[in-house]
């Protein structure tokens, strides 16, 4: 069966520090991968998605970047964190390109910027 792992579960970082959140998927090949953020009191906002190794699409302009160095690995990064980067970050995967393929989420990373 397929599983998705995100780490760390919680992270407290000072403003201006770098960030690296990692997500890996097991049990499937060539998944679509996604990074979402849920800010306090708001819904989930899509940040990045990837349909293959090295292929990254950004949905909103921001202080973050994403990379996909391997088929089942998706990394969210920042060189200098801002206070507004605080939130709950979720990685998700889906198979196929059809609209009817549900996405499956990891348990998320709670990021607090001080």
């Amino acid at each position, binding site marked *: 069966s397929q599983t998705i792992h995100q780490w760390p579960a919680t992270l407290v970082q000072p403003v201006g520090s770098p960030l690296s959140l990692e997500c890996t998927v097991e049990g499937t090949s060539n998944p679509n991968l996604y990074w979402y953020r849920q800010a306090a009191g708001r819904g*989930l906002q899509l940040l990045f998605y990837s*349909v293959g190794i090295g292929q990254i699409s950004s949905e909103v302009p921001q202080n973050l970047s994403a990379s996909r160095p391997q088929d089942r690995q998706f990394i969210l990064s920042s060189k200098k964190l801002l206070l507004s980067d605080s939130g709950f970050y979720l990685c998700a995967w889906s198979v196929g*390109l059809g*609209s*009817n393929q549900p996405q499956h989420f990891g348990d998320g990373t*709670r990021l607090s910027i001080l």
Partner: protein
Amino acid sequence: DQQVKQNSPSLSVQEGRISILNCDYTNSMFDYFLWYKKYPAEGPTFLISISSIKDKNEDGRFTVFLNKSAKHLSLHIVPSQPGDSAVYFCAATLGSSNTGKLIFGQGTTLQVKP
């Protein structure tokens, strides 16, 4: 521009009764709608979906209704159980997009009282 809206931030129902969660959308090109359930400190879990060519889909205690003319969908949970207490997100996908990316509503917190 919020394309998917859940106007009720919270809902409280008695155990055994029906829970009705509502969602409105603005983009008539959405072709699939999905409901996700989220517990605190966990990622969302896929619950049920419906194609835009249908008006009802049922899975056990969960039924989703779609009214395309009103651009409205709802999730019915019957009978409601305390374990259903969670945040429920509706989401939509665009058929013209081959990435399967989801556009989420803000979520509705359901509390089922014993």
